[in-house]
């Protein structure tokens, strides 16, 4: 149904002088000014359909994607904010830890310096002690060394003295010396104290009855008799006497009864002197 109402702008009939057909398509103009209900209804329907289609395929998807983007941005912003908070927290922790670390470093440095100082003092003390000990040891060694040297000098002097004495006595030995030694021997026997004599008697009570008397030179009869009488007097018993000559004695005599031996001769004295020197040498070496 096509219904034409009211508005009709009639430009055509009033414009005959200009030439109606050649100027404007009046029919077309009339058509546009006409109000067609069908066109109106279809236009409304058309618009509503377009509204539904655009709502379905344009507005909702765009709104959806904008909302998704906004959510994503908000989520990222929230995450960034959380990260910022976390970073700030970590930064403050780091600053705090750094300060604490500086403090710890300072304390550790002070402790280390104190420890080094104490250790240095201890080491210095220890070194001083060890040096003192070393000095004492060196002093002791020096003293000992000087003593040893002194002793060696003494021993050497003694050795030289004994050699000199031995040489001198060998040169000076003779019957006169022997007589003098025999007299000394007799005098020594006569001057023995009672305890010594008793001890001598006890020792020789079980020994052999033979008494060997060695001398460097031949003893005179008078001397032999004197010796026999003296021995009998001391030992209170009779013995058999055997007199021998022994040139090794240099001068003097030696009396031997079993294990017991009495001597008053140069050789034995020199041997005793040598033995004494040997003991002194061993003693000095042992130190």
């Amino acid at each position, binding site marked *: 149904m096509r219904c034409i109402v009211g*508005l009709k702008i009639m430009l055509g009939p009033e414009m005959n002088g200009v030439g109606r057909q050649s*100027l*404007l398509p009046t029919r077309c*103009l009339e058509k*546009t*000014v*006409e*109000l*067609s*209900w069908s*066109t*109106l*209804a279809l*236009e*409304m329907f*058309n*618009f*509503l*359909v*377009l*509204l539904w*289609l*655009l*709502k379905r*395929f*344009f*507005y909702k*998807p*765009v*709104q*959806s*994607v*904008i909302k*998704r*983007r906004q959510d*994503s941005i908000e989520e990222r912003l929230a995450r960034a904010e959380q990260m910022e908070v976390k970073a700030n927290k970590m930064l403050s922790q780091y600053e705090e830890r750094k300060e604490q670390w500086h403090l710890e470093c300072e304390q550790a440095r002070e402790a280390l310096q104190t420890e080094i100082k104490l250790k240095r003092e201890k080491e210095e003390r220890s070194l001083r002690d060890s040096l003192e000990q070393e000095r004492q040891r060196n002093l002791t060694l020096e003293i000992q060394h000087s003593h040893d040297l002194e002793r060696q000098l003494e021993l050497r002097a003694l050795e030289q003295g004994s050699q000199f004495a031995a040489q001198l006595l060998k040169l000076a030995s003779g019957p006169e010396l022997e007589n003098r030694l025999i007299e000394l021997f007799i005098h020594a026997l006569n001057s023995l104290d009672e305890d010594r004599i008793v001890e001598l008697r006890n020792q020789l009570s079980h020994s052999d009855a033979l008494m060997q008397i060695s001398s460097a030179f031949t003893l005179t009869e008078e001397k032999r008799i004197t010796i026999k009488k003296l021995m009998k007097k001391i030992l209170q018993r009779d013995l058999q006497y055997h007199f021998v000559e022994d040139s090794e004695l240099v001068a003097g005599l030696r009396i031997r009864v079993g294990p017991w031996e009495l001597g008053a001769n140069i050789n034995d004295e020199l041997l005793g002197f040598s033995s004494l020197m040997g003991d002194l040498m061993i003693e000095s070496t042992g130190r």
Partner: protein
Amino acid sequence: MVFLTVLALVVMRRLELIPGPMQTLAEGIHGAIEEAIRAVAPNHVTQLLPFIGTLWIFLVAANLCGLIPGVHSPTRDLSATTALAILVFLSVHWFGIRSKGFKAYLRHYLSPSPILLPFQLVSEITRTVALAVRLFGNIMSLEMAALMILLVAGFLAPLPILMLHIIEALVQAYIFGMLALIYIAGGLQSQQLRSSSKGELNE
């Protein structure tokens, strides 16, 4: 309508969080419409966006159709513009009633005084007629002027007029959509103004 639907389908086929050029354009259009609605009716953006957006998109497309040789703008037909004006008229009441209810909506015609009711009714009709005739008159006269210049002056002479046509098409679409938005927002916010003024008086 088919063109717009197909275009929407093509653009919206693959929506990404990081948009391409077409998606950016579509989102830009959507954002611009949304901002314009928010400036007038900030509490009803979601509710009004489909209608006002469709109105704007349709009018821009329809007005620009006249630039294509052999195609006439649908909006130079009074029936089409009247249909759109009637839809705007109906949508004002539809959104108003949906917002606060039938009685509350009708009551605003009686405020501030029932004496003003005839004027309100006349205003409703005249603004709807004005809406229809304004768009129709502008687009039709523009096309007619371009046709007359083409007939008189030759092939390239109406080119500035075509440029003017583009501007006029966009401006008329904007005016129609904005007026529709203002009417609808007026219907919606009159309820709110009344309720808020009542609240202030009670306080």
